[in-house]
């Protein structure tokens, strides 16, 4: 009897891949950017399908294929999940502490920098003609 295609393995692997690749999309929304709920859900779904696929491949070997592909796809899935976890939960948190940054109640140092049109802009000038200034430092390698 010809064995059946073990679709569960492939769906599981695709979910894991989607869990990894979709962060650039989910990063657009603060709720899914600050903590990768959506990605972890995709990984969880991928895990369930992969486990189901492995059970089929090894438990019902007469019915389903996937004895070779199953472990490979599962291993790749785990690898992708591991890489995502490393990047999100470790790498993104490697931000140096800033002990010398102005704290609430402290005066900020004045400065003059070029704006997007190449014009000198002094913080002091901005402050003089505004109710407040929101100063945002970007990593900014765009």
């Amino acid at each position: 009897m010809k064995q059946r295609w073990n679709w569960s393995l492939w769906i599981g692997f695709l979910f894991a891949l989607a869990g990894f690749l979709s962060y650039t999309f989910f990063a657009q929304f603060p709720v899914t950017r600050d903590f990768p709920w959506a990605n972890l859900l995709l990984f969880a779904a991928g895990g369930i399908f992969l486990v189901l696929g492995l059970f089929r491949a090894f438990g019902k070997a007469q019915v389903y294929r996937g004895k070779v592909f199953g472990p490979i796809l599962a291993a790749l899935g785990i690898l992708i999940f591991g890489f995502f976890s490393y990047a999100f939960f470790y790498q993104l948190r490697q931000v140096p502490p800033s002990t010398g940054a102005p704290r609430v109640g402290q005066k900020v140092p004045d400065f003059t920098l070029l704006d997007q049109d190449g014009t000198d802009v002094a913080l002091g000038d901005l402050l003089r003609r505004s109710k407040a200034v929101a100063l945002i430092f970007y990593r900014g390698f765009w």
Partner: protein
Amino acid sequence: MPEINRRQRQKLGYAYTFLSDPKAEVIRRYDLLHRGAGPKGTDIARPGEFLIDPSGTTRWVNLTENIAVRARPQQVLKAFDDMQAKGGP
């Protein structure tokens, strides 16, 4: 670089001022340097957000410890409202 900032600002459709600090001088003065974190190991800024009142005093700060987590617009607006309600520093 102003030219790059001009293009990026246009692309994102932002109306506020984008300043360039190519030698990271102001970044250093604010103790926000992230050594070697830029492309090809260049020094860039770690994220930092400040609300400053007209006297030059910091009224709100956000120094995230996770690059993916930044202040949300509502936080900054709330800090501004609080500042207006409280008056002077």
